[in-house]
């Protein structure tokens, strides 16, 4: 083919059986010449195309991926391509955070009669990929280990929440306890400088409840396992978003869950706290004041001011009080939304595509596939049947390559698209501190931009954007094939 000079590159095409595959056929029958780089995989419908097919191809050496289906309103199955359009657009906006040039992926619509259009699409896309050249491989760059900048300014002054009326909350829980199987909250952990989830079944258990900056765990993660049983949960503002998202997806029933809430003033980034404490054997005491905590470990005092040591999400938190609750102790705090980019995402934003690839190479190397990130995620509900480990379907090998590890992170991130509330538990759970939250944050940002500022976990009645579609999408436009 004279259209392009030089060596063939590897382009994977996913074509729907009813329109685009027919279109390619029409082009062939009409002897409309095309470059030969494209390898076609026929699928029943563009709605069948999991965005992960595309990521998998790109991570495993494809230089480009082209998806083509029936024109909108022309789907053989009525709406498959409407769903596909949303997913594929989100994917396109997700790829750059991995360090993959989004021009290497395109989706379009070609009908069975449009042989010429097909020829044009293939020629244009193949030329684009040749202009870009062979795709950089994850294994090639030198690992880049940049650190997230946590010197952040909070939208409001953060505090330790010690003025909250914990006793009132305990009384409220005790009053409700007889009707409930369990109420989930927090208690002191193995020392006074950390808390762990608490499962309250008796009034004595309720006495162990604590409230304050160490309450980092998101108790919503336990709710789906109690579906159908009457349970209570104590929530911070961000935890409530997870509860609402679970309600949005019918993963729990509203009438089963009793939500207890108090306004949150921020929680600590335990990674930095532990780093500052260093190796110690005993916590002598923990003292709270309005703006921070003083921890004495092995006789040495360490001061943690909330404004300096909070979790990344707390700095931009606009909903410190539960959006939905049955018992609220205290008055909701009003926070004016302001400019805020999550620190992990800000770091990725500051990098070039090549640097991002080198960054993930450097970060994912040390992942040991423990899946703490997955299991700590309140929205990850099929974890016992996760495709990360299943052989049937066989999505991913058990190898310890950086590629497989990064692919798992994209699986998690894509499965959370439009569902992730940004609670940060995945990243907090990672024992080796991989800043995986950036991947989720980028998707959340894309979802917000595409779907009118949509935020997950705010409105129990809202349909998550990737579970629906509009016939005319306001913010998704087909790209020109010039």
């Amino acid at each position, binding site marked *: 083919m004279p259209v392009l000079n030089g060596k063939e590159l590897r382009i994977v095409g996913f074509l729907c059986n009813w329109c685009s595959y027919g279109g390619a056929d029409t082009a062939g029958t009409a002897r409309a010449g095309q470059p030969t780089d494209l390898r076609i995989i026929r699928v029943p419908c563009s709605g069948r195309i999991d965005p992960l097919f595309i990521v998998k191809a790109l991570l495993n050496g494809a230089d480009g991926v082209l998806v083509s289906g029936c024109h909108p309103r022309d789907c053989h199955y009525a709406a498959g391509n409407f769903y596909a359009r949303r997913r594929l657009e989100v994917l396109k906006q997700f790829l750059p955070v991995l360090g993959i040039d989004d021009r290497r992926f395109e989706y379009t619509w070609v009908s069975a009669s449009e042989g010429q259009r097909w020829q044009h699409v293939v020629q244009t896309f193949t030329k684009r990929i040749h202009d870009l050249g062979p795709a950089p491989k994850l294994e090639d760059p030198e690992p880049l*280990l940049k*650190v*997230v900048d*946590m010197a952040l300014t909070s939208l409001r002054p953060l505090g330790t929440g010690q003025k909250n009326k914990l006793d009132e909350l305990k009384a409220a829980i005790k009053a409700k306890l007889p009707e409930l199987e369990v109420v989930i909250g927090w208690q002191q*952990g*193995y*020392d006074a400088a*950390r808390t*762990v*989830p608490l*499962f309250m079944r008796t009034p004595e258990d309720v006495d162990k409840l604590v409230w304050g900056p160490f309450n980092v*765990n998101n108790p919503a*993660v*336990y709710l789906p396992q109690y579906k159908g049983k009457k349970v209570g949960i104590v929530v911070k503002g961000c935890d409530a978003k997870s509860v609402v998202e679970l309600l949005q997806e019918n993963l729990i029933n509203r009438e089963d869950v009793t939500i207890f809430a108090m306004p949150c003033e921020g929680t600590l*980034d335990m*990674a*930095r706290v532990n*780093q500052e404490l260093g*190796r*110690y*054997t*005993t*916590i002598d005491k923990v003292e709270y004041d309005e703006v921070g905590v003083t921890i004495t470990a092995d006789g040495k005092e360490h001061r943690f001011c909330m404004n300096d040591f909070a979790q*990344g999400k707390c700095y931009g938190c606009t909903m410190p009080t539960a959006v939905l609750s049955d018992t609220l102790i205290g008055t909701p705090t009003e926070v004016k939304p302001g400019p805020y980019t999550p*620190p992990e995402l800000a770091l990725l934003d500051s990098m070039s595509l090549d640097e991002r690839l080198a960054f993930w190479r450097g*970060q994912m190397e*040390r992942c*040991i*596939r*423990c*899946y*703490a990130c*997955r*299991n*700590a995620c309140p929205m990850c509900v099929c*974890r*016992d049947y996760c495709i990360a*480990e*299943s*052989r049937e379907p066989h999505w991913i*090998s*058990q*190898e*310890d390559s950086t590629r497989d590890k990064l692919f798992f992170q994209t699986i998690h991130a894509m499965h959370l698209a439009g569902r992730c509330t940004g609670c940060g*538990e995945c990243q*907090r*759970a*990672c*024992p*080796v*501190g*991989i*800043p995986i939250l950036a991947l989720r944050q980028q998707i959340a940002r894309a979802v917000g931009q595409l779907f009118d500022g949509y935020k997950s976990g705010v409105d129990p009645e809202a349909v998550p954007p990737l579970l629906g579609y509009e016939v005319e999408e306001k913010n998704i436009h087909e790209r020109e094939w010039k």
Partner: protein
Amino acid sequence: MSITRFVKPEGLPAFLAHLSKDARVLAPVVKPADKRSVVFEPWKEGKEFTLEKATVPAKAAVLPQCETLVSYRKVKDKANPQNVTLELDDTPQAETTVVFAARPCDARGYVTLDRPYLKGPIADPYYKARREKLTVITLTCNSGCNTCFCHWVGGGPSSPEGSDILMTELSDGYILQGITPKGDALLEGSGLDDGADRFKEMEDVRKAAWATLVKAPNLKDAPAKVAAKFTDVDFWTRETDRCLSCGACTYFCPTCYCFNITDEGEATSEKGGRRLRTWDNCMSPLFTREASGHNTRMEKALRMRNRVSHKFSTYPENWGTFSCNGCGRCISNCPVSLDIRQIVLDAINADKAAK
């Protein structure tokens, strides 16, 4: 008295360079991040290393996260395409390796792994090949920490078990003490200065380390008491309430040794196929899911029961000692800080509490 050598901090890179002449040296390296971690990585000249306790133990030196057990390929005879021969390669992937600056709990981990892998009815050839090529240089701990409890389970901050060389930090450098003939030989060929005159100081530092540890409870009855709790499912359910069923506690454990075997690739393809052995763990529901779909340990409580019982009751039954070395990594790396110490203590004190 054993062979001792002394090295100043600034002499360590040269020592590592000496070691890496004929071995792969795995040294702890800091991974900077908001939550920084320390992992073992192959060291090469000029690379920074740390002497901090690693987040991930150096278990991979003998039991890699993933290894190829067999690679296989079907090759057609060009002259006679009907004739297909199967090429198999099951050579263990084993390199001469020195683990540098492990901690005593990590080193004892190798001994814990040796029993099932080498001392059972069948010695695992892959493990064996790596183990025989391994030298362990251990840095003794100068203090305890909030999660470690090596001294509860038969170890201690300067336990020599599993180490070829014990290294101790003194005020102005490090003393290295040969523990095994292999360690002695390594030190003799190291070109480092003799450390005999620092021996007394070394003993004092090690004694002082012991003094920093919190008092250990008596775990003599643990195997029997944990076993006695086996049928008390309520006990395990309560203890496991907050567990998320990930696998962090086992993958960060220097003594967990379960694995999975999977095949990747096609024998008939150009690259052939490979049979992989990868870490697996009893906290995962897949671990016991049978081909029929039936799962003998559907509840996380039953999986936790297995993990704790294995370490504190059944391994001791088979091998006469705990298979937990008290490194504390399952506690410090658990997203919900689940504390195995507490479970064992609760089992021991259960009847007391009931009375």
